[in-house]
């Protein structure tokens, strides 16, 4: 354990994490693995890979939790972990939905016209 652990996150239902670096590394590598299954030119894959690799590099470089929180700029480290879990479930669902395909159906004429 590096340094003093904070007593509480201050958020209901979010416990203080004892090994945030390990947790984040596992999650980020899982996300990157899940993104591998998508076509290389899919915008979701491009931008998410960029974002996640950047965050992963910060996690690998910075050992101090507080400085890492500042660098990641995403709130407390527990919130960052929660967000990474969300991103993981999202990438798995995106692999099913395949949103990079072209538009399924054009809207009927004048559907979005305003004023009528």
């Amino acid at each position: 354990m590096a340094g003093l652990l904070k007593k509480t996150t201050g958020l209901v239902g979010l416990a203080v994490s004892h090994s945030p670096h390990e947790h984040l590394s596992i999650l980020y590598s899982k996300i990157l693995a899940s993104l591998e299954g998508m076509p290389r030119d899919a915008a979701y894959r491009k931008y998410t890979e960029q974002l996640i690799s950047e965050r992963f590099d910060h996690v690998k470089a910075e050992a101090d939790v507080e400085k890492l929180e500042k660098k990641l700029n995403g709130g407390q480290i527990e919130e960052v972990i929660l967000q990474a879990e969300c991103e993981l479930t999202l990438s798995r669902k995106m692999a099913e939905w395949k949103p990079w395909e072209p538009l399924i159906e054009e809207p009927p004429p004048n559907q979005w016209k305003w004023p009528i």
Partner: protein
Amino acid sequence: MAASLARLVRGGLGRGYNLARSSSLQQQQSRQQSSTETRPTIRPSDAVTHSQLSAFGEYVAEMMPKYIQQVEVTCYNELEVMIHPDGVIPVLTFLKDHTNTQFRIMTDLTAVDVPSRQNRFEIVYHLLSMRYNSRIRIKTYTDELSPVDSAVPVFIAANWYEREVWDMFGVFFANHPDLRRILTDYGFEGHPLRKDFPLSGYVEVRYDDELKRVVAEPVELSQEFRKFDLNSPWEVFPAHREPKEAAAKLEAGDAPSEKK
């Protein structure tokens, strides 16, 4: 003792209220005297926010081209994303879970009835992101009979809002845990917020003394319905003029048509 206390409280409150009223009046007068502003109060257009929002809208549209039909930023700097009804759950899940969007809160779910369109109902979702302090509006369309996927698996807040849309408009939400009426009376027939539903409805209720219960009877208006012609002589939306007639397209070799 209680009466005297009450008198004291009332007197004290009354005195306080009068003081507040007079002081605010004085403040108003001084403000009017000091300011010599004559410009009308129009919100100044914020180009920076507008460009940021359009860039973000392009980002979202690039991520999900399968479902997103149109993206707009209104003049009041509100981002609107128009999607195909099949894409309700994918788009909402993306906006909730993705790191760059994180719209974790659904603030509103309503419908708009535009009877002249083929898909008359426009379902509108409002989302809020606390992390990035921004809001977004997602719009879908449906007609009277096609169901829309329920947003409840993504946002639990959508539960009662979807019940309300079902009750008021008649839009069916598939996979909703408990879709039943929420605002109308128990045996009520009809969907009140549709544009073809009259203001006073079709039935009125009264207590019948002989039957000893409440009965529903056709509504009786004491005054005949009056239709007002509210057209103004001035154009209502000068910024949205339609071109009068498109010039007839000529194929190569045709003689130009005669002008009437």
